[in-house]
C-alpha cells in the first residue's frame, strides 16, 4: 500500500508524537500514516496517543535501530483533529 511516511528519525520524545499529531490533523478517517522513528520511547508513546484518540495501530516493525509504526486514522474529531 502506498501510504505517506512521516520521518521522525533522530527526534526525541515527545517530538515524534507531536509531529504525528500535527500530521494526523490534516488526514481523513481511513487514511494510513507510517511514522519512522529512532527513539525507542515512540513504541509506547505513539500507541498511547492513538488509544487516547481512537486511532488504530496497524503495525510496528523494528529493524537496524529504526522503528516503523503504521497507524490508521479512525476518529474524525479530537486528537489532533481540532
Amino acid at each position, binding site marked *: 500500500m502506498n501510504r505517506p511516511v512521516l520521518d521522525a528519525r533522530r527526534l526525541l520524545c*515527545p517530538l515524534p508524537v507531536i509531529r504525528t499529531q500535527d500530521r494526523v490533523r490534516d488526514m481523513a478517517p481511513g487514511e494510513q500514516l507510517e511514522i519512522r522513528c529512532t527513539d525507542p520511547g515512540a513504541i509506547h508513546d505513539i500507541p498511547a*496517543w492513538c488509544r487516547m484518540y481512537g486511532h488504530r495501530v496497524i503495525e510496528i516493525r523494528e529493524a537496524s535501530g529504526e522503528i516503523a509504526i503504521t497507524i490508521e486514522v479512525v476518529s474524525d474529531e479530537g486528537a489532533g483533529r481540532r
Partner: protein
Amino acid sequence: MAEPRTAVALISGGLDSLLAARVILDQGVRVEGVNFFTGFCVEGHTHAIRSRDRRRPKRNNALWVAEQLGIRLHLIDVSTDYKDVVLNPRHGYGHNLNPCLDCKGFMVGRAYTWMQGHGFDFVITGEVIGQRPMSQRRDTMPVIARESGAGDRLLRPLSAKLLPPTLPEREGWIERERLLDFSGRTRKPQMALAEHYGFRDYAQPAGGCCFLTDRHYAAKLADLWRARATRDYELDDIMLLKVGRHLRPRPNFKLIVAREEGENRFLEGYRKQFTNLTTVSHPGPLALVDGEVSDEDLELAARLTARFSQGRGAPRVQVAVAHGGGEPRILEVAPLSAEEIPAEWYL
C-alpha cells in the same frame, strides 16, 4: 441537562498535575490536558539516548497521566517561543538557569489561550503553595495569574482552600469545599491522595522535570553562550547539551564525546553538521567538534578522542577526522593521559 463545565489542565507528567486534574474530574467537569514541549524537558530524552537507561520505562509521563485519567492530552511544541523565556526572564533565574516564575506564567498563558480558542471555561494546574522556592509561593501565585492573563479563571485545586475563591468557585461550577489545602514541600498529602485514588507507578523526577534546574546542564548552556559571544540557541544545541562528555580545551572549540553506544548512535545523526572524529585503530567513541579549529586544534581533539578510546594505553592511535560528510583523513596521535586533561576542560 446542562452541559458540563470544561477545564484545561496543565499536565507535566508528575503527581501534582495528575491529582489536580483528578480532583476536578471528580466534580463532573470535562477536562482535557495540555503539555508543552520546551526543549528542556527531562522527560524521555536521556532515557531514550543512553543504552544503560534502556531498561527504564521510556513512556512519556504526560501521556501516561492522561491515560490514567481517561482524558485527552494535547502535546504542543512551544520551543521557539520559549526561547524568550529562557533568554530574557523578567523575574530572573533560580539557582541555575531556571526561569521558573516566567516559565509558569508563560505556560499558564498558553493554556489560557488554548482555553479561549477551544471554548473551555477555566485552567487548572497542580501548583501547591510553598512547594517550589520561586514559582510556587503564596506571593508569586497571583503574579502568575495576572501575567498569564488567566486571572481568576486559573484554579489550583490542591491549594485552592488557602487561596481566594476563583471564578469557577464563585460561580458554583465547582464546590470549593471539595478542593484541597495542601501547602509546603512535604509530599505526604499528595502520596496519600494518590493512594486514595489508586494511582501507583507515577513519575517522581528528582530535581524537577526541566534541565535548566540542573547545575551541570546550566553550566554547559552558559559556556555555549560565552563561547559564541551571544545568548542564543537552536533546538539542536540544547539537545546536544544533554548528551556526551563536553570538554572545552580551547576557547574556540569544544569536543562532545559519546560515553557509550546509545550516545554514539545519537551523535551519529549530527555527524554531517560537525567536524567529527572517530578512532580507527581501536574501538572508541564518536566525537564532534563544536567551533572553528586549526590543524593544531584538530590534533589536540584527536588526542582527546583517543584518550576515551580503548587505545588509551597504546603509544599511538589512528583517528579519522572528517569535516561534515567529507572524506576523512587519518591522524596518528598519542592519546592524552588523564593527568594531561585539566579538570577545568570538563564542562
